[in-house]
C-alpha cells in the first residue's frame, strides 16, 4: 500500500489492516498528521478544519499509536471537535474567550476512545460554543467545504465534517445539539449520527445546551460510525444524565429492508426544501422500497413549532452555561490582571471582547426567555411544546420503525450568504431540531448530489434503536453506493 493510498482506507479497513500486520499504525498516524498540518499551514488556501494538530507522532508511551496494538481500534487516528476537553491540549470551543485554554482533564468519551485505541490526531474547528449551522461563527476563521471551497461545510461541527470529507482524518468526533453533526455531514457528503440523549457521556464536553448536547461520530460510512459509536456509549458516573446502553453496538450487515416500515412526515418534507434536495430524498425513498421497505405517511403535528421551541430552550440553557466565562478562573480576562479594576467592568468587558456576535445574541435571547415575567411565556411554553413533540414521535413509532426526512432544506450554501440574517441561518436546522428535542437517535447518510453538491438523508428511530437504525442506514448506503465518494482536497 502506498503512502498516498493510506487515507483511502476507511477507519474499519485501517483497523483490520493494522490487526493483520499489513499496515503500521505509526505510519498511518504520520500520514494523516502531515496532511492535517499542511492544511493548517495553508491558511486561507486550506479548508481550515483544525485548531490544533499533533506536532509530531508521539514516540513512546500511552500516546504512541503503536502502543494500542492490543486495543480494538489499533491506534487509528481520531480528530476531535475543539469543545471536547483534552488534557494539556487547547480546548476552546471555537471561542476567543477560551483561546489557548488547556484543561487539566480529558472528556470521558475521548478518554474512553483513547482506551479503545484511538490516537488524538487533531482538534477540529467549529462554530463558537457550537452555535451555528455553517462554521462561520468561529473565532479561528471559517471552515471551507471540500466540495466547493466557496461554500460552507455546515455547522457547528464543520471542521470535523470537512476533515473527514477531505480525507484529512479517517474519522472525527462531533457534537449535535440541534443538528450540528447531521447537518454538516449532509453538506459534506459523509455519515453523521446523533445518539439517543444520555447514551454518550457529556462530561468534559464544553456545554452549549445541556438537555440537547450529544457527542457522536462523523465518518465516511455507516460501518465506521457503528464502530466508533460502539466505543462511545455507556454510563459514566461523572454524568448524571448518562445511561447504560442496553446492549453492544453491532457492526451492521443488513442488505435489505424487508418488513421495515418507513414514515415520511409531511411537515418536514415539503415546503421550504430545495427542489434538488427533495429529488434526492424521493430517489432514496424509491430505493428503500426496492429493498423491501414500506413507505407511509406519518404526521408530526408539532414539528413546525420545533424550531421556535428550540430557539428558546437552547439559548436559555446556554445563557446559564456560558455565565462561567467571566475572566475569574480561566480564559480571557479583559484589562490588566495585575491591576484589577471594578468587578462589574471586568465581567462585562471580558464577555464583550471574548464572545462573538452569534453567541451574544443567543445569550441575550436566553436571558430574556428566563427572566422574571417572561419565563412562562417563553421557557415554560417551550418545555411544554417539547413534550408534545416527543409525544408526536412516540405516536408515529407505534406505526413505523423509522422516520425519514431530508437532513437539511438545502445543499451547501455560499460563505456569507446567510450571515446577515440569523433567522435564515436558523432555518437550516428545520429538519434536525425535532429529533434533538425528543432525545431520539438520528443518522444522516449521503444519498446523492444536487448541482454537484451532496444531499443528505436522515433516518430517525426511537430511543436506543441505534442498532436497527445503523442496519437500515447500512442497507440503504450499500444500495445507493455513495459511501466513500469524496472531494479531492
Amino acid at each position, binding site marked *: 500500500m502506498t503512502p498516498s493510498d493510506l487515507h483511502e482506507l476507511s477507519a474499519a479497513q485501517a483497523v483490520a489492516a493494522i490487526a493483520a500486520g499489513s499496515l503500521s499504525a505509526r505510519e498511518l498516524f504520520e500520514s494523516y498528521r502531515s496532511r492535517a498540518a499542511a492544511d493548517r499551514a495553508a491558511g486561507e488556501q486550506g479548508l481550515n478544519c483544525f485548531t490544533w494538530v499533533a506536532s509530531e507522532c508521539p514516540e513512546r508511551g500511552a500516546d504512541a499509536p503503536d502502543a494500542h496494538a492490543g486495543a480494538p481500534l489499533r491506534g487509528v487516528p481520531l480528530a476531535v471537535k475543539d469543545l471536547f476537553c483534552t488534557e494539556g491540549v487547547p480546548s476552546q470551543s471555537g471561542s476567543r474567550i477560551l483561546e489557548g485554554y488547556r484543561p487539566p482533564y480529558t472528556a470521558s468519551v475521548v478518554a474512553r476512545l483513547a482506551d479503545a485505541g484511538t490516537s488524538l490526531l487533531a482538534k477540529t474547528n467549529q462554530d463558537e460554543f457550537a452555535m451555528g449551522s455553517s462554521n462561520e461563527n468561529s473565532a479561528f476563521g471559517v471552515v471551507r467545504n471540500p466540495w466547493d471551497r466557496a461554500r460552507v461545510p455546515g455547522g457547528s461541527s464543520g471542521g470535523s465534517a470537512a476533515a473527514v470529507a477531505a480525507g484529512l482524518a479517517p474519522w472525527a468526533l462531533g457534537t449535535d445539539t440541534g443538528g450540528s453533526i447531521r447537518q454538516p455531514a449532509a453538506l459534506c457528503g459523509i455519515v453523521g449520527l446523533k445518539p439517543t440523549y444520555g447514551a454518550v457521556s457529556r462530561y468534559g464536553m464544553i456545554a452549549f445546551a445541556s438537555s440537547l448536547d450529544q457527542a457522536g461520530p462523523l465518518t465516511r460510512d455507516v460501518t465506521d460510525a457503528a464502530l466508533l459509536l460502539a466505543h462511545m456509549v455507556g454510563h459514566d458516573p461523572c454524568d448524571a444524565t448518562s445511561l447504560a446502553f442496553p446492549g453492544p453496538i453491532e457492526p451492521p450487515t443488513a442488505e435489505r429492508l424487508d418488513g421495515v416500515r418507513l414514515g415520511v412526515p409531511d411537515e418536514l418534507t415539503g415546503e421550504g426544501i430545495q427542489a434538488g434536495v427533495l429529488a434526492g430524498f424521493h430517489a432514496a425513498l424509491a430505493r428503500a422500497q426496492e429493498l423491501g421497505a414500506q413507505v407511509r405517511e406519518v404526521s408530526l403535528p408539532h414539528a413546525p413549532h420545533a424550531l*421556535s421551541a428550540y430557539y428558546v430552550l437552547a439559548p436559555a440553557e446556554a445563557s446559564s452555561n456560558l455565565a462561567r466565562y467571566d475572566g*475569574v478562573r480561566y480564559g480571557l480576562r479583559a484589562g490588566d490582571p495585575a491591576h484589577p479594576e471594578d468587578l462589574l467592568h471586568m465581567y*462585562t468587558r471580558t*464577555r464583550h471582547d471574548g464572545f462573538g456576535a452569534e453567541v451574544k445574541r443567543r445569550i441575550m435571547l436566553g436571558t430574556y426567555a428566563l427572566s422574571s415575567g417572561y419565563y412562562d411565556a417563553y421557557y415554560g411554553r417551550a418545555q411544554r*411544546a417539547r413534550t408534545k413533540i416527543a409525544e408526536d414521535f412516540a405516536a408515529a413509532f407505534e406505526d413505523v420503525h423509522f422516520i425519514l426526512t431530508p437532513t437539511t432544506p438545502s445543499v451547501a450554501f455560499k460563505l456569507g450568504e446567510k450571515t446577515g440574517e440569523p433567522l435564515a441561518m436558523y432555518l437550516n436546522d428545520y429538519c434536525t431540531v425535532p429529533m434533538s428535542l425528543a432525545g431520539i437517535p438520528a443518522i444522516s447518510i449521503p444519498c446523492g448530489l444536487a448541482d454537484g453538491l451532496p444531499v443528505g438523508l436522515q433516518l430517525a428511530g426511537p*430511543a436506543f434503536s441505534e442498532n436497527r437504525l445503523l442496519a437500515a442506514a447500512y442497507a440503504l448506503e450499500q444500495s445507493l453506493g455513495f459511501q466513500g465518494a469524496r472531494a479531492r482536497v
Partner: protein
Amino acid sequence: MLHVARLARLELAEDEIEPMARELSAVLEHVAKIAELDLDDVPPTSHVVASSLEGVVSGALRADEPRPCLARDLALAQAPAVRDGGFLVPSPQA
C-alpha cells in the same frame, strides 16, 4: 434590552445596541409562534432522559466517597490573576 444585557453581564457598545435589538426582535417574533399552540394541560419536559426511560434511571446519585482533588497548581494554572494561593479578583461592591 440594556436590562437583559446587564443581567447577562454583557457590555454592548453604542453601535451594537440597535442591530442586536433588531435581530432579537426578528427571532422573538418567530419563536412567539409557540404561543399558537394549546398547551394548557401539557406537562413540561424538564428532563428528556427521564421521559425516555420510565423508571429505569440508576446512578443519578453518587456515593459519598472522596475522589482525588486537583493539585492546587493545576487548579490555578489557567487563572488570569493569582495571589496567596487564590484567584485574585476586583472586590465586589458592597
